[in-house]
């Protein structure tokens, strides 16, 4: 039988990649197109509206610019706090020993699992008007930052933790025996090893903070030029019937998200190339 002989001569994986592979590729691309790409294409199309001029006009209205600026500043602050606190938490979870560590480790995932609106309500109950501590950050930028910190907590911790687990302590011990202090060991040995993980965690936290809506919407009070972030601005524009304005700012947020993802990808490829050399 010539057909079966031909099949046998081919490398075995060729059969699978020909039959199953083509099917998987087609199904995967089709699903992504319907669920993700088609809606995003419609968004970009609507933002273009009456041409590039009107897109630019909508994107640079004073209120939309103020919201975008606040969004970027708060997301950057949030990323910075996460870089420090996230690394510290990861360190404590890997290197420290204390009772209840397992529970603390599990709790880190809670912001991923908790609906964002519940996160917002939660923070408002405690740090809003009539809260038990007498702290009231409702309708302030600080309140918005709190909400962003809540939802982005796991990114840096979960990025740094596995790297820290695999990091050999021999180098640190050698440095310490040569007289380096705890801070010196961290700065010269641990930190450079953790930096890539910290950066990719920080980038994801930044992207998440730029787009966050549910956790922010209750606590920010949505005061234009003061506490209104871009996602809330988009929602407001849509509700007042300015679809093109909403779409224009959305395209900017989409560009930021894509930029962050492509940046992380490029950074990873750059590192693997340099590691293998």
């Amino acid at each position, binding site marked *: 039988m010539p057909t079966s002989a031909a099949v046998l001569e081919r490398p075995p994986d060729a059969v*699978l990649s020909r039959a199953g592979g083509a099917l998987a590729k087609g*199904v995967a691309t089709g699903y992504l197109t319907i669920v993700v790409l*088609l809606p995003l294409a419609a968004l970009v199309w609507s933002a273009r509206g009456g041409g590039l001029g009107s897109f630019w006009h909508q994107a640079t209205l004073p209120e939309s610019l103020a919201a975008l600026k606040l969004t970027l500043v708060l997301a950057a602050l949030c990323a910075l706090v996460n870089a420090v606190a996230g690394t510290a938490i990861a360190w404590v979870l890997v290197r420290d020993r204390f009772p209840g560590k397992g529970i603390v480790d599990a709790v880190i995932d809670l912001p991923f699992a908790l609906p964002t609106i*519940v996160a917002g309500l939660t923070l408002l*109950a405690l740090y809003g008007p009539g809260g038990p501590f007498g702290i009231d950050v409702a309708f302030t930028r600080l309140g918005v930052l709190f909400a962003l910190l809540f939802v982005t907590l796991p990114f840096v911790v979960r990025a740094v933790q*596995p790297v820290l687990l695999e990091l050999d302590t021999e180098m640190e011990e050698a440095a310490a025996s040569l007289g380096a202090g705890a801070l010196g060991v961290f700065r010269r040995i641990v930190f450079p090893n953790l930096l890539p993980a910290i950066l990719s965690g920080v980038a994801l936290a930044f992207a*998440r903070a730029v787009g966050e809506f549910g956790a922010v919407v209750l606590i920010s009070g949505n005061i234009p030029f003061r506490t209104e972030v871009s*996602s809330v601005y988009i929602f407001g524009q849509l509700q007042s019937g300015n679809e093109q304005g909403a779409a224009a700012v959305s395209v900017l947020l989409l560009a930021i998200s*894509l930029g962050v993802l492509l940046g992380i990808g490029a950074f990873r490829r750059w590192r693997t190339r340099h590691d293998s050399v």
Partner: protein
Amino acid sequence: MSRYVLRFFALGYLVLLLLVPVGFVFYRAFEHGLGAAWEAVTTPQALHALELTLLIAAIAVPANTVFGIVLALALVRGRFKGRGLLNAVVDLPLALSPIVVGLSLFLLYGRGGWLGGLAEHGIKILFAVPGMVLATMFVSLPFVVREVVPVLREIGTEQEQAAETLGARPFQVFRRITLPAIRSAVAYGVVLTTARAIGEFGAVSVVSGKIQGKTETLPLYVADQFESFNVAGAYAASVVLALIAIGTVVGLRAFQPKEVH
């Protein structure tokens, strides 16, 4: 000494940002007794919101599980042009604002949108369950893919090739060899997908139209009750969602991939 400072800082940050707020919502929900909280979450509106939330998850999670596995297979085993782009698109929902997701669907299926004509033919997507399912599918798409991809890379193709040379058909190879190897990664991804599907707020709130008793999910119900000054109802429903989240965290522990611990 520095160890204790660090421990104090890390745990203090977690307690103030995470544990005290979540604990306080439980306190506020139950401060008028268990009966009052039970009454608040068993109103017809709340029950309908819970039902709708579960229905949407029951459609979106299996869809993203099946297609997530296929996507992971295509990304790892396939060799074709545009694979890098496919990879970036899969991650996009993780980094994109849910409001942008909702708006995109709104513009695609709304009046004047490319597929806006579907509504005239009686296929209602916007302000109805299909639109909410699509929004949920969009935002929870990456989780299964992202968990399965590294496992597929790690197991390689040797066993699959061996099975194939022994005469197994592609689907048999998948069911007997590939699926058992990725099972716990899939489970982990499913838990994450479910949590996101149940909790999604921004994207769903744009496409739902928030019609009480019709297109209101439990997260939307929380916001609605809070804004209409029924704070007790909002807290009670929040506790239901928080319990689901805690269940998720416990579930994640159970399916934790080996490389973390």
